Every structure is written in structure tokens, then in C-alpha cells.
């Protein structure tokens, strides 16, 4: 038997150990199931067993990362509620404006870095899908009472954000207030109604309801014919309405108007009779979620009556039919038949959003370059 030195034996053992570890890592990553595969397996389980598994595994994961654009105070309250219910799962929430959070998330995905578990999406959903970054959830994210129209194959809508016509009560009599977008074309509103420089939600809803041609005609008449006042940002638009710069704001979030009304602003809102739009922001679970069970648990909490009522305490309209809401008037908006009347813009309407973008460039952008 040939003599093998002690050093050679040590080196050989080390090399084998490294090789084994490498293979384990490789196999682990090759065999590690994606979120979608995990959810497909869970979907086949009986409900009780499924929930037990989700809870056990989520506790083991112990954490999750959410990228979203929800207001700081609201997200903090929801996370506090979630962690009270599930103290073993820590939630990290990265809050930025929606364009920045989407850019960040997609940069990470394109670089092969999967650090987020849930992501807030709206426009940009198609890019997330193209990158195969959204996991199919098999309906596990919500219970049976959750309205099905807010649950996609790989996305979930948490809230309904109606956009309404708002008016200043000291500058406009209630009887004179325009009741529809068609009324805004009346010459008496020339130079008196504000619109956002990028009214993508409104125009998308109009295209969905009226079609592209009629929407283009309305935009031309309102923006150019009636000299609509162009303002940048819904924030500024609502503030200036409350301050009395103009009598009408054509597209503002109903809950923001309610918040200012609560503080004493002399403004009010109404749902337009012809196009009543509501944005439905969505979330997706990452197809390579580092914590797929925790992500699912959070999504389930977020769609539960408790989770939805927390956001409702801040005036955000939850989708769950039994969730509580601070502003009763907003609750009426989402009860049938009004809900049926709302043109909902969800993440799958991106093709329409692209058409809206085209019309905005054609009719609104030239006003920005008038001088």
C-alpha cells in the first residue's frame, strides 16, 4: 500500500468536503421550490392542514420584506396589527413613491437579486409579468368572502380608490356643480376646472368605458376647448381646491377630499354620472420569494376583515365587504349598485394605460409646452 502523507489526507478530505457542500448548495438551489410550486402544493391540501402548514413554515421563516407605496402611517398600523397576531414573523416594509419602488424592485430582479416577497404594482405589472417575477397564488391569498373580481391569478387588490369630481363650496353652488365629465365641457367651466398633468387613471377609465375615440374627443374639448387648468400632482390639486384657487377639481381621490373636509376645508365631492372610476392598486408575491409562506400569511392578513379595517380607519376603502371604514359616505360608494357602476382600473388594464399615455401626450403635453 502506497504511503499517503498526513497532509495529503487532510487536503483530500477538505476538497471532498468542499465538493459535497458545493453539491448540496447546487442541489438545494436546484431542488428549492419556487413560491408558485409551494402554493400549488398547498392548494391541494385540505384547508385546515393548509393553514397549519402555512403558519408553521411562516414562523420558521420568521420574516418577510414588502415593497409598497402605502402611506407611512397606514403601513405601520397594518404591520403592527399583523405582528400582534403573528409575533414570530417580522415585517420589513420599504415605502417609496410607486415609480421608485417599481424601478428598485425590477432592477433587483434583472440583476438576479430576489429580496422582496411582496410588491405593490399598478402600471408596470406587465413588466413584472414579463420578468416572470409574479407567483401564481391559486386563490390562497384571500378567503371565500373576498370579492373574486379583485383576485387575479397572480395579483391581489387590497383597496378601492375612487377618483371623483371635487368642488369648493364657497366658489360653487351645489346646484351648479357639474354632475358628469360631460358637464365639464360646458363653457361656464372654461378656465375653472383643474386636471392633473398626467391624468392616467381618468383617461384609462374613459377608454375602458367609452373607447379611445370618444375619450380623445373629450380630452380635446376639455383640455384645449375649455382651457382646463393643468396642475402637477393630486396633492397640490386638492390643496389648491381647498385654498380656493379654482372651483372644480376633475380627478382627485375621494378619501383625500374627505380627510380635508374633516379638517374643516369647505370642499365636497361627487361621483360623476358618466364615468365613475376607481383605481385598484395590486400586490404580487415574488415568484422567487425568499419567504413564500410568510408572504402568503401577510397577504391573507391584508385581505382579512381585521387587516382591511385597519386601513379603513385611515379612510382607505377596503375590498372585504365587512371591513370597517372611517368615512361612511365612502362605504356607500362600494356597495352595489354603486360598485357595479364604478369602472375599476386594476393591474391587468396596462394595455389601456398605454393607450391613455398616448392620448395624454397628444392632448395634455402640448398645453405644458404652450409658451
Amino acid at each position, binding site marked *: 500500500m502506497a504511503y499517503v502523507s498526513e497532509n495529503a489526507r487532510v487536503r483530500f478530505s477538505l476538497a471532498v468536503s468542499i465538493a459535497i457542500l458545493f453539491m448540496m448548495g447546487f442541489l438545494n438551489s436546484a431542488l428549492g421550490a419556487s413560491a408558485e410550486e409551494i402554493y400549488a402544493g398547498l392548494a391541494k391540501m385540505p384547508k385546515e392542514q393548509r393553514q397549519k402548514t402555512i403558519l408553521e413554515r411562516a414562523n420558521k421563516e420568521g420574516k418577510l420584506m414588502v415593497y409598497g407605496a402605502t402611506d*407611512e402611517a397606514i403601513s405601520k398600523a397594518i404591520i403592527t396589527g399583523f405582528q400582534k397576531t403573528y409575533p414570530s414573523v417580522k415585517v420589513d416594509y420599504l415605502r417609496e*413613491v410607486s415609480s421608485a419602488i417599481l424601478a*428598485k424592485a425590477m432592477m433587483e430582479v434583472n440583476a438576479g437579486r430576489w429580496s422582496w416577497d411582496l410588491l405593490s404594482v399598478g402600471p408596470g405589472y406587465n413588466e413584472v409579468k414579463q420578468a416572470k417575477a409574479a407567483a401564481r397564488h391559486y386563490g390562497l391569498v384571500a378567503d371565500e368572502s373576498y370579492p373574486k373580481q379583485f383576485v387575479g391569478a397572480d395579483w391581489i387588490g387590497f383597496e378601492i380608490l375612487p377618483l371623483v369630481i371635487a368642488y369648493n363650496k364657497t366658489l360653487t353652488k351645489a346646484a351648479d356643480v357639474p354632475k358628469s365629465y360631460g358637464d365639464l365641457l360646458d363653457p361656464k367651466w372654461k378656465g375653472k376646472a383643474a386636471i392633473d398633468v398626467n391624468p392616467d387613471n381618468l383617461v384609462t377609465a374613459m377608454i375602458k368605458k367609452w373607447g379611445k375615440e370618444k375619450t380623445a374627443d373629450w380630452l380635446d374639448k376639455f383640455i384645449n376647448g375649455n382651457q382646463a387648468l393643468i396642475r402637477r400632482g393630486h*396633492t397640490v390639486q386638492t390643496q389648491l381646491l381647498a385654498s380656493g384657487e379654482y372651483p372644480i377639481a376633475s380627478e382627485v381621490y375621494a378619501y383625500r377630499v374627505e380627510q380635508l373636509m374633516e379638517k374643516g376645508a369647505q370642499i365636497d365631492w361627487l361621483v360623476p354620472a358618466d364615468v365613475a372610476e376607481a383605481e385598484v392598486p395590486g400586490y404580487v408575491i415574488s415568484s422567487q420569494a425568499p419567504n413564500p409562506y410568510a408572504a402568503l400569511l401577510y397577504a391573507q392578513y391584508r385581505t382579512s376583515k381585521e387587516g382591511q379595517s385597519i386601513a379603513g380607519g385611515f379612510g382607505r376603502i377596503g375590498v372585504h365587504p365587512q371591513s370597517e371604514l372611517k368615512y361612511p359616505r365612502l362605504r356607500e360608494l362600494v356597495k352595489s349598485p354603486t360598485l357595479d357602476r364604478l369602472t375599476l382600473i386594476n393591474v391587468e388594464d396596462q394595455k389601456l394605460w398605454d393607450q391613455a399615455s398616448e392620448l395624454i401626450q397628444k392632448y395634455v*403635453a402640448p398645453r405644458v409646452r404652450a*409658451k
Partner: protein
Amino acid sequence: MAGTQGAIGASHFPLTVARQRWRVRPELLIVAALIAVVGWLVAIPLAMVVWGTFRDAAPGLPGSFTLNNFVRAYFNVGLLQAIQNSLIFAGGASMISFAGGTFLAWVTERTDAPFRRVIYALVLVPVIVPGILFATSWLFLLNPTIGALNKFASYCCGFETPIFNGYSMGGMIWAEGVDNFSLPFLLMAAAFRSMDPSLEEAAQTAGAGVWTTMRTVTLPVLLPAVLATLLISFIRALESFEAPAIMGIPAGIAVFATEVWLAVSRTRPADFNLSATFAMGYLLVTVVGVYLYHRATKMSERYVTVTGKGYRPTRFKLGYWRWPTALFSLFLLGVAILLPLFILIWTSLLPFYMIPSWQALSLVSLQNYRDVLALDSAYEAFVNTLIVGGSAAAIGSLLSAVIGWIVIRTRLPGRRLLDVLAFAPIAIPGTVMGIALLWLYLSLPIPIYGTLWILLFGFLGKYMTFAVRSTYASLTQIHKELEEASTSCGAPWLRTFARVTLPLMAPGLLIGFLFILSLSFRVLGLPVMISHVNTRMMPSFIFSLYDEGKYEVLSALGVLIMLFLLAIAAVSRYVAKKFGVQESH
């Protein structure tokens, strides 16, 4: 014996020569290290921006070479008009900020007018308050319908039509110009403080008055500081989007930054390639500006004001003009800074903005301040900003001192490239720089993504340029003879630099420090893109509040930040006075 000694000496001689030939001079090592550092901080993100202009896919995705980005960016109907508007806007705003800032710097540093400390403190306010707040405050002052100034004019003087219209080019230029008083003030104040008064005394002895002396002696001698100030002010105004967004868009006045925003906001996520292509336009302006600056200041000996001759800067005795000068300065500050500050403080006390009135007074409360203090994430963001801003300011000031010395004092090859590299990032919009950094550190196995380090690198790379310009202006005023005296006494280069050059540059360095620190609280694009869960900075927090519609809470936050940074400014002024050139009384 002599032969032996000669043989020994001959055998040692080649070794001595060889050691001298291969002895590495420390300044060359420092230059090499500096080029590597600046290259990493600036050149790589810059290269990515340039690369992005010629690709048709976002970073990290497969793509191909294209020139289509240039077609999309620069062949659009509104661009020529936007460029013209930009030149008017940036030119007008930079002239206002230069004139106002320089006048106030002269009053505080070179005259015996009273209230100099008050003037100094007030001028620093705009550098501290986020631009978005100031621009909105001006909107609430100059709005033709609800503007406080128009309402006041109507109430007290019976004007039926509005006197002021914020939705105009004039409104934009004014808001941007006064918002940027601080930088020219700081740069020119440092230059004035370091100036040997003998030239001015000679002019006055020859019969020139104060104003003639200022115009024909002081400003020409301070040409490097003047040009640096104008260059930075112009480029900042060119890149600025706050006033154009809030006041220009409603007026139908688009500038270059508006066209960038219109093009980039059409897609989600934002089109990086298009953003990078627009950044090339800013870069071109920057390169031309830097070239013109160096052409104008190449005879640097002309601008020396600090020599080996001992001196103390003296103040002009204004005589009867003391109080009118002080009152005019305070009036200027009142109009330019106190008015929007009043609106900011007023809004911070209200549930939503209202024109000042007795009815609005009844709604005043400290609720917004309580709301700010109740936000846990505000404290973390504040601490992160102090850490990143303070570190970037300190390191940036030091780096700028060395860069300045290489560019101004040496004839080393590549120093002009170093200068352009150090200045170029000012032209790149913060969001574009942020995306470039994101991709860089997501792709490389350097684990700083999601940490404060990426923010430090980002702020250093993007904003070191302010410290560099301020350093140039300072260094140009210092005569070489002071350093030569030290080296001729045997002090090595490093000791001369640390013990002679740096202290004399202290006013310029401290301005760079203060400016980078204040920018870390103020600028939005870069930190919003590269911060993460536990590394959010104040700007991300501010932008979130603005996006959520909590303008009044944001105003309260702005007031709190301002009070804190005013305290820092007071300390830095004390340090500058203690270590810089001492003034005579």
C-alpha cells in the same frame, strides 16, 4: 588609501542613484489613489450613464446598440422651445442668486454694517429647507387668485387685479433665484474673507469710492470664485424641476427638465436609457462650462490674494451708509427669504393651507409638529441623514482639497480629466445617478446594497463637486510662496499640505462641508432611488409625505430641520473664523 576610498565610493554611487531613481514621491501615490477613488465614485456611474444612452434595454437585461434614444430624446417638437426657456430660466435665476448672494456676502464680510450675524443666519435658510417646500410657499404667495401678496395688495391698497402672477417665467425665475441665494453667498463670503485688502486700500487711496472699488478691483480679483459660483448656479437651475413643475407647468412653460420628465414618466418603470440620454445634454453643458472656467482663470497668479505677507482682512467703513445698507440687506432678505419662510411656518400650524386671516388663525395648533414627532421612521431617517451627510461632507471636503491642489498647483497629466470627472456628476439628474449606482452594486459582489455605504458613495460621487468648486476658489487666492516657504525649510509635502495649505483653505473647505451636509437633507432624486428599509434618509421621508398629500406635516418637518441645521451653521462659522484668516477690527 585614496584609491580604496575611491573604489568604495564608486561602488556605493550606483546604488544611491538607483535608490533615488526608484524613490516614490508621496504626492504621486496620492494622485494615483485619488484618481482611483474619483474614478470609482464618479467615472463608473458616469460610464454607465453613457453606456445606457446607446442601449435599448434597461441595465441587466439583454439589449443591443442603438441611436434611437437620441432620436426619441432630442427630436421632439417641444425641445427647441424648452431649451430656449431653460436658458432664460437658468440665466435669470443664476443672475438673481449671484447678485443677491454676492451683495449679502460683501455686506457681512467686508463692511461694518450692523446685523451681520442675523444676515448670515437668514441667508442660510434656503440651503436648508427642501426646494419643494420653498417653491410651494412661493406659489402660495404669488398665486394670482389666492396668493397672500395679491390678497394683501387688494386689502390694503384696493388693487382689483392681481399684481403678481406666480404662474409665469418671472415667477419661476424669482422662486429659483432666491432659493439659491445661499451658495453664491457662501462661496463669495469665503473669498471675501480670505482677501488681502491692500489692493482695495490702494484703490481707495487713489480716490475710488466703495462701489467703484468693489466693481473694478474686488470682483475682478475674485474672478475664479465669481465664475465658479455662476457656473454652479447656472447648472443647478438648469437641472432644477421644483419651480418649473409647480409654477411652469400650469403656465404652459416647459423647460428642459420638463421635457425630461414628460418623456420619462410615460413608462413604468421609468425609462433609464431615455433618462441617461437626456443626462448627456446636461453633461455637455457642464463640460463646456468647465472648459470656459479654466480658460478664464488660467493666469491664476492674477487672482492671488493671500500671500506670505502678513495681513488681516479689514472692513470698509460705510459711514452714513451703515444703517441704510443693513436695512436694505434685511429688506432684501425679508422679501426673498422671510416671506416664503413665513408661509412655511404658517402652513405648519394649520390643518391645510389657508390665506392668512382671522378665521384661519382660529385653526392654528401644534398638531402637525406632534404628528412629525410621533413618526418613528422620522428619527431613523434623521440619524441616517446625519451619518451619511456628515461623512460625505467630511470625506468630500478632504478629497476636494487634494483634488483642488492637484488641479490648481500641479502640471500633472490628467489633472484636467480629474477636474471634469469631479465636476461632471452635477449634471447628472439624481434619479439617473441612483439607477446607475443601483445596477452597479446589484451586479458586483460588493455587499453594500441596502446599507448606508451605497448612500455614502452616491452622495460623495454626486455632490463632492460643490466642495471642489469652493476649494478651487479658496486655493486660487493662496500664493504658492507660503507652501514653498514650508518645503524650503525641509517640511515634506504632506506636512506642508496639512499644516499650511489646509488651514488657509479652511473657509472654502467648511463651505463645502456645510453645503454637502445640507444637501443630504434637501435633494430628493438620489436618496429616493438608493435607500432601503433601514437606510432611509430624510429626503425619502420628505418625498413620501409630499406624495401622501401631508403638505402641512411636511412644513412642520421642514421647520424642525431648518432649526437644527441653523445651529450647525453657527458652529461652522465659529470654526471658520477661528482657523481661517483672522480679520482686523
